[in-house]
């Protein structure tokens, strides 16, 4: 369904992605792991054209795009057909929860308000915020804000949703409610690409795990392969460190 090939991204002279390829099939839950600075965020942002990659191609069903030469129309189509959940939520601060969800439907998709609100209410109900529709972002907790962010992403019925560390800005006690929503989406067959350090999520929900380091994909496989039988030393090291941190926190 979605295939990225040989993606190269530079920030100045610094090559942050060094030929990354990624394949996502319908219904996949792909988890991307990797140390800080390995290029995970940049990868997601490049696929959505929030960054302009210098080299590489994107195939998205019938769309074939050479990253550096993407046309406005193609960029818009990719964005219309995908969803993005940000680490810092990035909610529209002058809009209520409901308006956050309906905004894209009304302005970008030109849906009638009544229809958009119906979809918006359903999306908020799905993330457990049926009673917070008229709240502004500042009146919501971090976990609630992120769930609005997820509702906003699912409301447009995207073919794939990208999550960039959706829980890492949250207090530990709020992480669970967001992960629960994401698990629910995964069970319903939503195609998701998730950058996260939540190993429990990766182990229980992902069908594919990708380990990145230094701007390349070091290793990929099923969760079982990666977590119990990693081949690469860098992967093993990273997993040992993550596990130590988890124990330390506990």
């Amino acid at each position, binding site marked *: 369904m979605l295939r990225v090939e040989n993606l190269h991204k530079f920030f100045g002279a610094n090559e942050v992605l060094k030929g990354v390829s990624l394949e996502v099939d319908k219904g996949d839950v792909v988890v991307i792991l990797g140390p800080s600075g390995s290029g995970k965020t940049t990868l997601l942002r490049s696929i959505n054209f929030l960054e302009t990659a210098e080299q590489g191609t994107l195939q998205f069903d019938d769309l074939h795009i050479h990253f550096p030469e993407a046309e406005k129309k193609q960029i818009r189509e990719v*964005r219309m057909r995908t969803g993005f959940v940000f680490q810092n939520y990035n909610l529209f601060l002058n809009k209520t929860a409901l308006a956050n969800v309906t*905004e894209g439907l009304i302005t970008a998709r030109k849906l009638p308000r009544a229809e958009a609100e119906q979809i918006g209410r359903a999306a908020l109900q799905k993330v457990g915020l049926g009673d917070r529709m008229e709240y502004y972002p500042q009146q919501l907790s971090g976990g609630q804000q992120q769930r609005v962010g997820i509702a906003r992403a699912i409301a447009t019925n995207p073919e794939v949703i990208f999550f960039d560390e959706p829980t890492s800005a949250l207090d530990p006690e709020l992480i669970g409610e967001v992960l629960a929503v994401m698990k629910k989406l995964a069970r319903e067959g939503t195609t998701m690409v998730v950058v996260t350090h939540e190993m429990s999520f990766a182990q229980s929900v992902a069908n594919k795990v990708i380990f990145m380091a230094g701007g390349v994909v070091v290793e990929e496989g099923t969760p079982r392969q990666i977590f119990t039988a990693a081949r690469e030393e860098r992967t093993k090291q990273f997993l040992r460190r993550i596990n130590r941190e988890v124990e330390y926190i506990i």
Partner: protein
Amino acid sequence: MEDRLVTLLLQSFAQILVPGLLVTIPLTVVSFILGILVALGTALVQIAELRGLKQLARFYVWIVRGTPLLVQLYIIFYGLPNLGIKLDAIPAAIIAFSLNVGAYTSETLRAAILAVPGGQLEAGYCVGMSFSQTMRRIILPQAFKIAFPPLFNSFISLTKDTSLAANITVLEMFMATQRIAARTYEPFALYCEVGFIYLLFCTVLTRLQSYGERRLSLNKA
């Protein structure tokens, strides 16, 4: 003697206030509105990083902020005819004031737009919205709240700065006062009087600002 002065002040009050209401205020309002439009364009081409236009915008701000308003008025009214561009006094004043306000408030607006918590533009893109849709519906409404007090500051400044238009033959409040002073030889009383009327105008504006801020609920957290 004292009676004469009181009578003069009372009589001149209307003679000064009328050009104030008919010239100073419309001149201020029209120039400010045009200025804000110029400022919005100037700020947005810089935020959108439109090459060429961005440099042009910086150049414009540099020129206007770096030269006195009085000199700008003179160039436009007395200078441009040398190039074959003859403008009436009021249009010339409106152009000079709009350009001046435009340059200063473009910086206010640019700072306000940059102060809107980041990522919302990208979030707009990610739900399929365009730059202009996201600006109009998400970023600018928030930027406007941030910019409101400094914009009002510029508005109050402009109200007083329009007195400079007296230099290019615009018969506004200050010029009306100059004429009466020349005729009656009472400059002290009359210039104090016109100062008082400006103060009155600005007091009203200050009230308006507080009202506006309450409406925008800027004072609430």
